[in-house]
């Protein structure tokens, strides 16, 4: 499949970020991903996915 089918996530990649640098980052740098995290935190918690086996 062509590389153009690869998917780009809006989630910032913090894999190699130093914690001290992370503290200093503002909302502009962290973008929509941070806003989404905050929106999720304000929503009622989705009940976990569950499974009841009849076995």
């Amino acid at each position, binding site marked *: 499949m062509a590389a153009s089918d690869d998917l780009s996530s809006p*989630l910032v990649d913090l894999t190699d970020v130093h914690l001290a640098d992370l503290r200093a980052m503002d909302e502009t740098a962290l973008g929509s991903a941070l806003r989404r995290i905050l929106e999720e935190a304000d929503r009622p918690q989705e009940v976990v996915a569950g499974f009841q086996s009849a076995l």
Partner: protein
Amino acid sequence: MRTHHLSARHFAELAGGRGDANAVATLSRGQHSIRLLRLHAMLNEAGATHPHARLEASFSLLSAVQEHAPAALNDTLAEPHVGAWLAHSLRRTRGSVGGGEPIWKDLGHLASIAATAAIRAGLEFEVAVPVRAGTAVLPGYGRATVGAEFDWVPVSGDGKTFTVADVTVPEEPDQDAPGWEGLHVLRARCGELSIQVGLDDLDPFRDLHQLSAAKRIDPPTLRLWQQRFTECWDVLVTHHRGYAEAISAGLITLVPLAAQRSTRGVSATSMDTFGAISLSLPGDTLAMTVTLIHEFQHAKLGALMDLIALHEQTDTTRYYAPWRDDPRPLGGLLHGAYAFLAVVDFWRIQRNLLDAQQARFAHFEFARWRERVSRVVDVVATSDGLTATGQRFVGGMRAALTPWWDEWVPGESAELARNAAENHRIGWRLRNLRPQPESVRRLADAWLTNEPLPVDDVPTEILARDRNLVPNARLDLLCLRITDPDRFQRLCGDPRLLADEMPEITPGDVAYAQAHYADATVAYRKEITANLGSIEPWAGLALSRQDTHGEPRSGLVTCPEVVRAVHRQAYEVAGSWHDPEKLAEWLAGLRPTVGP
């Protein structure tokens, strides 16, 4: 800033229900970023406003760990219950959840996380950690009993030996020692593929969803978990290798739950705790295997949805999910379909490996989940709520299912699968749909005065409900007919034994499970009039009539909730019971407006 990516190959594998260790590693990296974002947000919100939580000292220690041994920090952040704590603490700082403990104690848990990371890194350090119920927990490590008189106790070490207050952390922290309860570890190897997971009965944030997490389990129970896990791993690696590789790459912790009923296993996965699965001890090896496969699907999909939106958050429609008793949003529907896609695959393989008796059940499971997942995939694919990537994903699910429809299923198992599907669908309508009261009154009045149907359909509301698992004794007994015919006969011939083992079972259910449909019809009729609010006898009556008369278009089948409501309304007006079957025949011309 750089953002995460997912290759087309990994996306396609995941959409088909699979995904190898590399795909799972990509998902894990996304979770790492999410956790750091939550940490950042929580510190911003709470750092200045909750000085008693001592967040700055904890953060400094975490930074020191990262400088010295970044892998120790990453491994600690990957602990599933660190994820649970981060999501919870951010919600607490923003006031969207409460908690049994003061907020400083919940937030102060960051110190326990930092201490664990520092021990992993072999640092010389000292930090104060909060005390809960006289104990201090190091997540993913163990629990020290330190005394309820303290709010905080020091954790310290010289890089080799570490103490929590005056309790020494043993060199092998999964071992118990004076004052120390180690995190249980389950290990298994099959060929070249090995796995090691924690069995966490300690972490204070392991049960935020209140699923009845088991308290400290005893050594014989631990041995049972290990035995079952070893056997399960053999089955996974030998016959379901792709799933085994994904699970070995992403599963970190199992949380034992207290079993709800002796014959049922319960399990769950939280979207905040990637790497953890909560489950009661499954009854046998296959039950554990299918549970791990099912739950890890939820983990994969949740982590994928954290990277890429598959559906719009604004969609508020509620749908029928054939595996849940409550109406589900689109995201929940997709989750269930994705988890059961792998369950279909599991039984597809498994039914060719089992002896004839066990294979009957495997055929049944394969047939019923294939049918249900396919129906739901159709519903999801045609909903307006999917994103373009979501459409692509559901297309991948469908592509995985399609060839499985060429596979043969024995008649008895196929019939039972259809029956189980109807059982659930009719019960769901009865529990979740509320016909408009005005229409119900009009219908009851017309019925009582022998008039023709006054309407073609009844506006019907799907009720928003909390999750409520409804045991289905009729279906349990019916399954027993093929899974264990001897036990089925024994139970049906001994009412006292049956009542003891299946307290919810009714005479109608027993007659129905034995295919005595005429007797079942009579019994269910009695059960309906004996209990005004009852639901299950209506489903039983519909199924018995369907099997006796082969009348798929009875109102009992197409809109049982309307039949039940009109039946009750007519009783309230006339003061006497009317024949539900005749009423259902009269209502058969109604067109259902919502639901399955």
